[in-house]
């Protein structure tokens, strides 16, 4: 919890002046060579991380015939942009996308709304059962829906919630909740009480102090919690695979593999759909990347 407020400013503005920066050599030819090597390695790493998705895009742009031609080619001979249009027509992709978004979005919202007060209260107050509550959070952080899928689906059968979005939302919210509580708890603990006390003097209540003073300061922690939960729900596969059956209530992860079947392998559609799904999330990540490091700093120390 020994976060430094300073480090949360990391990544704002110009790069440089970063504590712990590796590049401590004096500027000079040696330093320049070092930077060149670093940059070279950096770009190579970037390429390795992007490569599979480039292949995804290239496959998505190949016509059916070229997919199963051997030898295979790196680039499509004919760039076939119609795949993207076909996918939209061929399958209820838009609906699956909606399901994925709703499940991930609402689960994130619920997890945050439930985690915020709990994290805040435990960070600011000592009370009976606080240790027990934090232990519960810490332990359940270790549980994943995958390991409990048998129990989850038996429960959903008992509650008559199979094949509902509500079931997916609840599962994703509950299983990501511990991480949210933990990261926010760490963040709130690192924010000096005095700031809130100043607000109390101005006649603010607990809730006002929280929303006006503490929350804005804990933005990186919030962003990290949002991202972690959203991605967790967005990626969730096993529970969705098990408890949804109607095509229009399945998230993308469950719907997409349906393009590769026993009688046909439409890899180009599969990847076209994947791209449509991935691009918005990547853009979201890129936008908040600077907050991510700060957010993980608080959580990371804990």
């Amino acid at each position, binding site marked *: 919890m020994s976060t430094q407020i300073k480090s949360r400013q990391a990544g704002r503005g110009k790069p440089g002046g970063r504590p712990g920066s590796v590049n401590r050599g004096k500027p000079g030819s040696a330093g320049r060579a070092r930077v060149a090597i670093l*940059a070279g390695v950096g770009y190579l790493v970037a390429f390795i991380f992007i490569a599979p998705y480039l292949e995804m895009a290239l496959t998505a742009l190949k016509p059916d015939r070229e997919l199963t031609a051997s030898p295979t080619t790196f680039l499509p001979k004919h760039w076939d942009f119609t795949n993207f249009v076909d996918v939209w027509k061929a399958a209820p992709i838009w609906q699956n996308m909606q399901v994925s978004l709703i499940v991930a979005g609402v689960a994130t919202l619920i997890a945050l709304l439930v985690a915020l007060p709990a994290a805040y209260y435990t960070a600011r107050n000592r009370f009976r059962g606080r240790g027990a509550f934090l232990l519960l959070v810490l332990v359940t952080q270790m549980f994943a829906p995958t390991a409990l899928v048998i129990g989850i689906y038996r429960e959903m059968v008992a509650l008559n919630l199979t094949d509902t979005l509500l079931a997916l939302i609840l599962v994703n919210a509950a299983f990501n909740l511990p991480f949210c509580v933990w990261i926010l708890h760490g963040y709130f603990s690192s924010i000096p009480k005095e700031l809130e006390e100043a607000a109390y003097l101005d006649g603010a209540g607990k809730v006002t102090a929280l929303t006006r003073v503490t929350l804005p300061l804990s933005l990186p922690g919030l962003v990290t919690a949002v991202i972690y939960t959203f991605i967790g729900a967005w990626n969730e596969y096993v529970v969705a695979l098990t408890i949804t059956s109607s095509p229009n209530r399945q998230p993308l992860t469950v719907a997409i593999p349906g393009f590769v079947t026993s009688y046909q392998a439409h890899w180009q559609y599969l990847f076209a759909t994947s791209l449509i799904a991935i691009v918005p999330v990547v853009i979201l990540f890129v936008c908040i990347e600077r907050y991510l490091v700060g957010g993980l700093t608080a959580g990371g120390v804990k």
Partner: protein
Amino acid sequence: MHNTIEARGAGAKAPAPSSKSALRRFGRALAPLPWIGPAVILIVAVVLWPVFEMVRTSILRISSSGATIGTRGTGNYRDLFDETDLVAVLLRTVVWVVGVVLVTVVISLALGQLLNARFPGRRVVRWAVIVPWAASVLMTALTWKWMLNYYYGVVNKVLQGVGLIDHPVNWLSNPTQALIWMMWVAVFVSLPFTSFVILAGLQTIPEDVYEAARVDGAGRARTYFQITLPLLRPSLLVAAIINVINVFNSFPIIYAMTGGGPGSKTDTSTTFMYKLAFTGSGDVGESAAMAVVNFALILILVLLYLRAVGWRGETKS
């Protein structure tokens, strides 16, 4: 876990209406409820109930069409331990978890340094590293499956092009090779989160520590191993434990790439559990028994983790 219930009931003894202090105590004990109640309810209803349901299911006799016929006692566990593949699956799970997490952490240490270094275009590199995290694991796994395809895969083409292999290899058919590739994919999707946790850890190390080391004349390597690494310990611990949990429960990669096949030769205990219930002969009871065994393994990990973070000292008032 039951102490939470206690905690919520704490002080809920019938208050003596005559005594004001008792009432106030009662009120104080209830004060946290609006703040932490919802979280407790959600966790109990959606996380702990399935645990109970899973254990209960593991002692039931359930037919292949899902009808509960009666109780079986330990029969499901006996069936499970009679499975010829079980030992191999458990050993493979250990190799899978340890291998993937170790390689991920080691590569992430290097990546963290790289992302923390200053060079033109660093932002772009950071963004690139994030991509596999933002992309769905399942879709990434499917992409790799396609690239490793024996007939049309790009991996064979590249490796033949650079002369590493002289004829195409059917990577995902040989259980050992398939496992190695799948471990690589698991590492690939775990790297972004881990690198960023380590990057965040690196940024908390104050500059003056390095100043002091420079004054002492410590070289680069010594500085790294004597100062940077020890200070990264908390971040490493968090990264390692979250990865262990994620990798242990990693289902989509194996399910999408080989389906655990041929047979169960590339299953880990997670996919094996799923297949027991939903493919093959469809024995939910036995699958629940496998889930309980899995769960026991996770609990052991949790206890180790609690010891590592020194739970006792953390939340004691």
